[in-house]
């Protein structure tokens, strides 16, 4: 088979998967099914069913020892792909060839039973994931050590906290020792320490030249872990190549979807006399390319398009950014910067706000816009919650950590200085007194 080279760990050819929507709801009971059989209505209904292609003609092959990230928007087909590769579901057509022992982690702690103890669940879970009893016996102590739930080993896990359950589940998974590991968004749960453990384990596998397939929304982790990246979009492979290049393209991909820009023709709840109005707002890369995804820490610029009905003297353009909980993150305007725009002629134009570094943790923000006169008395245009800005995770602090809104809203440009560690102790009393005094105002 030419499509399946011998070194390939995973090789798929022309893979397609379709779902028929409406099938389940229509004939979900036996009675209805029998009735439709009698009345022959199923012959007619079949044509009404909508066929959804979760995957369409997907082909690729992954060599042994490769670490590949799979990215894409929700519903793009990433999870379906993983489910087919791990044999959970079957493709509608196409060939799959997987060589080696596969461990697919679509969830942590699959098969845990509330009533069983931690010890029993280790065996049950290990067995479900394909470990033999002897294998679990041999690794049992390591698994328990890794999980950190020694004390509660003989307690039913219904008494465990969700964090303990997660750790136990991952401890079993980390000891699977597969040839091919497939991970789906496991990192989306758990605290920072847990996520670090997950990433370390995957990095270990990579170091052992195991094959790793990693489906994630966490672009920072993908970038950190995977040399190659496959971008799935609408059930097809949109791009397959070097991770940095794929992620860069993925981020810039909004142009056609229009997600990186908002056009305000008839924004609801718009205030102001309308003599000058916002036409649209675009998020652009410093090179001027439309950005679909804004990553934390990146430079970018916001382009405000306006349209003036008459000559406006000395307007001020402003914007506010809120968290999804309504906390004001920042406000800025041309007035804040002391800029004086003497005159705006009738017609259309734009102005750019350049942001050197978007120092916010990944989250969703809403944006409000306004145009007023210099005193803020006359409101020309004001749109509250004009648009949302979704900031994606990035390699903040270049640490590869998955830092998100749990770390707060903003971070400052910063660095640690570790030169004082293991150095000579500093006598705190000898510090110059001026430092501890309040600064003179």
């Amino acid at each position, binding site marked *: 088979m030419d499509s399946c080279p011998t070194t390939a760990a995973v090789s798929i050819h022309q893979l397609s998967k379709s779902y028929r929507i409406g099938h389940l709801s229509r004939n979900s009971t036996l*009675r209805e099914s029998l009735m439709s059989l009698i009345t022959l209505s199923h012959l007619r209904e079949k044509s009404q069913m909508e066929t959804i292609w979760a995957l369409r003609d997907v082909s690729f092959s992954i060599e042994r020892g490769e670490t590949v990230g799979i990215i894409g928007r929700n519903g793009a087909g990433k999870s379906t792909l993983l489910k087919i590769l791990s044999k959970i579901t079957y493709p509608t057509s196409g060939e799959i060839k997987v060589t080696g022992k596969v461990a697919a982690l*679509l969830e942590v702690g699959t098969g845990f039973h509330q*009533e069983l103890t931690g010890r*029993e669940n280790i065996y*049950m879970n290990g067995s479900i994931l394909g470990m033999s009893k002897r294998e679990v016996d041999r690794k049992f102590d390591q698994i328990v050590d890794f999980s950190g739930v020694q004390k509660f080993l003989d307690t039913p896990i219904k008494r465990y906290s969700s964090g303990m359950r997660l750790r136990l589940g991952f401890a079993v998974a980390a000891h699977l020792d597969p040839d091919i590991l497939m991970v789906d968004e496991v990192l989306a749960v758990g605290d920072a320490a847990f996520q670090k453990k997950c990433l370390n384990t995957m990095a270990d596998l990579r170091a052992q030249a195991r094959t790793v397939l990693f489906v994630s929304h966490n672009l920072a982790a993908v970038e950190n872990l995977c040399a190659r990246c496959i971008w799935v979009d609408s059930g097809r492979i949109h791009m397959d190549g070097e991770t940095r290049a794929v992620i860069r393209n993925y981020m810039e991909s909004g142009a056609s979807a229009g997600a990186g820009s908002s056009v305000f023709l008839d924004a609801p709840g718009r205030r102001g006399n309308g003599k000058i109005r916002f036409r649209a707002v675009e998020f652009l890369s410093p090179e001027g390319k439309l950005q679909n995804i804004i990553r934390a820490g990146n430079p970018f610029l916001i382009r405000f398009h306006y349209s003036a009905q008459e000559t406006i003297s000395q307007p001020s353009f402003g914007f506010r950014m809120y968290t999804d909980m309504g906390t004001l993150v920042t406000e800025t305007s041309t007035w804040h910067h002391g800029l004086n725009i003497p005159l705006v002629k009738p017609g259309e134009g734009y102005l750019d706000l350049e942001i050197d570094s978007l120092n916010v943790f990944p989250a969703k923000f809403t944006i409000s816009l306004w145009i007023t006169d210099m005193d803020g008395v006359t409101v020309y245009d004001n749109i509250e919650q004009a648009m949302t800005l979704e900031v994606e995770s990035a390699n903040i602090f270049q640490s590869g950590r998955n830092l998100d809104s749990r770390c707060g809203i903003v971070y400052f440009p910063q660095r640690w200085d570790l030169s004082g560690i293991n150095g000579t102790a500093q006598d705190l009393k000898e510090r110059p007194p001026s430092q501890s005094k309040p600064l003179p105002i």
Partner: protein
Amino acid sequence: MGSEYFKELWRYRELLYFFAWREIKLRYRQAALGAAWALIQPICGMILFSLVFGRMAHMPSDGIPYPIFCYCALVPWTYFSTVLNTASTSLTVNSNLIEKVYFPRIFLPAGTALAGLLDFSIGMVLLAGLLRYYHLRASWALLYSPLVALVMVMVTIGVSGAMAALNVRFRDVKHAVPFLIQVWLFVTPVVYPATMVPERFRPLLAINPCWAVVEGFRSCVFPGLPVNFSLLASSTVVAIAVFLSGVFYFRRAEKGFADVI
């Protein structure tokens, strides 16, 4: 299907054991009487049927004391009915497993069937005690009982597998199974002897694969019993056919489990 599938079943064989183990653990956990329930069920059935059919209705039992005559059939019947009842929902109850991880799906109903063998064995030990109590002698025919037990397990897996697979698509099955079991009990010679059925209807009833199981056990345990061996043989053939078609249907349906469940 083919050898690839059997290789995989072999590779995952420990999981079958773990599913059975989990079921046994969970069944008696937090139950004060624990495993005693395995005895209470068939004994109560025996007493109840003996009172109603033996004492009140004077049901004939081919010259064997009615309680043991009935109990001998009740042990395999209880196995069949409880496994069928539990296994028919074994896939839907474990839908989370089916959606998240691959393993041979047949092990879910088959695990229930394996777990049921514990209760069955306990019931059989009690049967041996009853034989002594009634001063009945076992004969060489008892050597056939493992074969009959095998047929019993095959029928049970065949029917349970098909019902479990059907239940994934049609949740009606869950409601239909208890009813099905009730009807099935009365077309199987559990509370009455096969000889009570008019001669011309017997071939019709022998289509029932449970007939082979129940009559098979009786002919092993009570060697003096009049048994129509040609009917027993044809019923056994039906039992094997039920097993094969049940498993075949399951294999066909399992490809869609994760999508439909």
